[in-house]
């Protein structure tokens, strides 16, 4: 019998990721060099952080399509504040970004919790509203690199123990999630609510409140990423990270987070994001037009969801004794 660990989705995904690396490396030597891999990880950091927030939301049988707009709005707010008041310390700006993101996420959460509106409707709506607010705020103009303070831009790039701060933040978020999701009551509640909402009630877990928490955390991380994105690329404009919510959902679905709720791991989400990150970075190396990326994400979502659905089909109840023994 094959050990369970080798049959897990994460193991399959890790295998696929390694195979992809070997393939790219065999054609274009140097891609899998540690330095380049670190660069790919750094480039994928924001996707990883957002995918982890989205994971919580999907675990509870919801979806948050507003993350990229949330990111754009908080990013623009920090950039404009920085441009207008270069004296505000970066730490304060980051705190503000997280606070604003939390608020935007909580707004989604409260509509889902208290008014029981389907999450897809709520976040499709806030996707446009938050993006529109970026325009209202900036009047459609850009905040360019030269308007930003040096400290503002330097923070995510600063190198610490061989890795940029941006990468370290991703590492911290991954570690924090790994602990929080497996070892706190709230973390386990996300699984319970999505796995069997009916049973969650019997266990004394409030389904609505848990969903609210998931949306709020997803929003907070989107806020954090707002600052990280804008400072890293040193530009803020209305269409920042346009359509990025789809990459985030794709990373989760590829990572084996079941859209039916209750199933998925932090490792899976990280691997799913890295899978997309490697493809994105390998395309230019392989001389393939970056215009392929959208179609590849779309195909990956469909393949992943079809693959995941195969494993999780519910069998009928087993009544025959002979069948139970063999099952």
């Amino acid at each position: 019998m094959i050990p369970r660990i080798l049959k897990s989705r994460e193991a399959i995904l890790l295998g696929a990721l390694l195979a992809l690396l070997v393939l790219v490396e065999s054609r274009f030597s140097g891609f899998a060099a540690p330095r380049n891999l670190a660069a790919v990880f750094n480039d994928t950091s924001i996707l990883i952080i957002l995918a982890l927030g989205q994971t919580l939301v999907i675990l509870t049988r919801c979806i948050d399509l507003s993350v990229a707009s949330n990111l754009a709005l908080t990013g623009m707010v920090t950039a404009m504040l920085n441009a207008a008041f270069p004296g505000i310390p970066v730490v304060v700006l980051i705190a503000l970004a997280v606070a604003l993101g939390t608020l935007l996420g909580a707004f989604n959460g409260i509509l889902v919790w208290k008014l029981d509106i389907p999450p897809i409707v709520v976040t499709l709506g806030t996707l446009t509203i938050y993006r529109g607010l970026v325009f209202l705020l900036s009047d459609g103009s850009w905040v360019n690199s030269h308007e930003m303070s040096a400290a503002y831009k330097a923070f995510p790039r600063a190198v610490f123990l061989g890795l940029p701060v941006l990468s370290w933040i991703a590492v911290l978020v991954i570690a924090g999630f790994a602990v929080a999701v497996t070892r706190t009551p709230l973390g386990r509640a996300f699984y319970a609510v999505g796995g069997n909402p009916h049973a969650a009630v019997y266990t004394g877990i409030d389904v609505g409140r848990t969903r609210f928490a998931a949306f709020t955390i997803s929003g907070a991380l989107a806020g954090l990423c707002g600052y990280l994105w804008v400072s890293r690329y040193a530009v803020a404009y209305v269409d920042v990270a346009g359509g990025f919510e789809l990459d985030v959902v794709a990373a989760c679905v590829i990572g084996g987070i079941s859209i039916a709720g209750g199933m998925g791991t932090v490792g899976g989400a990280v691997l799913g994001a890295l899978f997309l990150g490697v493809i994105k970075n390998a395309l230019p190396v392989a001389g393939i037009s970056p215009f392929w990326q959208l179609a590849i994400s779309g195909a990956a979502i469909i393949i992943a969801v079809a693959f995941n659905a195969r494993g999780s089909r519910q069998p009928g109840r087993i009544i025959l004794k002979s069948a139970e023994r063999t099952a």
Partner: protein
Amino acid sequence: MNFSSEIAEPVEVAAHPVLRLSGITKTFPGVRALSGVELALYPGQVTALVGENGAGKSTLVKILTGIYQPDEGRIEVDGTEIRFPTATAASNAGVTAIHQETVLFDDLSVAENIYLGHAPRGRFGLIDWAGMNAGAQDILTRIGARLDPRTPLRDLGIASKHLVAIARALSIEARVVVMDEPTAALSQAEIEELYELVDRLKSDGKAILFISHKFDEIFRIADRYTVFRDGEMVDDGLIADVSENQLVEKMVGRAVDTIFPERHRAVGDEILTVAGYAHPTEFADINFKLRRGEILGFYGLVGAGRSEFMQALFGVTRPSKGAVRIDGKIAVIRSPAQAVARGIVYVPEDRGKQGAITAMPIFQNVTLPSLGRTSRSGFLNLAEEFALARTYSERLDLRAAALDQPVGELSGGNQQKVVIAKWLATRPKVIILDEPTKGIDVGSKAAVHAFMAELAAEGLSVIMVSSEIPEILGMSDRVIVMREGRIAAEFDREGLTPEKLVRAAAGYKESAA
């Protein structure tokens, strides 16, 4: 019940009930599920709760576990009044339940299912997985369950899941354990293990409420009994003071054949033959014949595979083997649409989910499978629809304000009439009624029974799945008993007794009593 008289009982040690319910009443729109219920549970004693389906047992369990709030009445723990506004409140007060359908989490491990909501915490308040696994292992060993706490629940069979639920009850230091038909899906060996477990819980001083349909096990493990009928507590006392027959009588409460319509047995030609129907996990070797104008009863315990078989016969699921003949001709039935076309229709047990489309008006429900007849080249003809709906609604004595009233506004019994009308309008050959009178009021029950007899007299063949013994005895020409997915026995109505049915369904041959 008089408290002082309880002390006077010489039999048992404990005198003070851990849990006492008095005057508990709960109503739902259209149904009074419980009225003025009394119940007392004593430490170290097993109280058997018996009653027919729909007697209010499930509602009581939900009130005890904080899922429902009673409209009236008191809940006392150790003599102090208490409320269970949430499931957590009930479990904090030491009341826990092992439900009929296990409400556990398939995606989580055994240990976590045991400890969800009250996991042991280690440093920084984080969940202590090692401690949790060890604790789970400890409890599982204590109840004699050889399970690895790290196994995902998904990989376990139903019997093991029950053990996990029991382990969960122990992990919260429960003082009152409610077991809702815990043996319904267990094999004989597993049941024996469960009995030992119950004995162990008893000697630990837990108060146990044991809900069961099986009289042998009630007499095997219970100290006391409480009988529910139509939402009321009708009797209670010590098991030692009653016989099995007395208990059946109290449960049924009325002479079996008085309320059922006169039946003139007039069976015609054979209309339906089922040969060797089987399904990989749900049923096997189903063979029977049905004649024109016959009412064939299907009796069995909950989970015996009756509904699963009927749904396969109706084309909802596909059998792995077997053949159906209608009027002697082989009929391939792969979907409900095909079944309807061949003249087989099915009134499901789960009216709200599978039967009525509650948000839609009565007439649209009735004409749904008959639209091909009422419409012209695919276009609706409302006048025809109303006419068809009226014909059958009035035949069934439907009580409604108008035919365009949403079905959801009707009482349970009238909703059932709409579903039956829907199928009669297709002029079927065979109608399968799955628990046709479950959860409906007495008046509608009688109407459905009378109508069933009328239909059979007109030559329609009826298959009636029922868990109510009086209904089976009162209505059927023949009875097939199913157990564990197979036909356990077949009886002719003549000379059939409740005891024979109960024994066949529970699977033991001769009683020692």
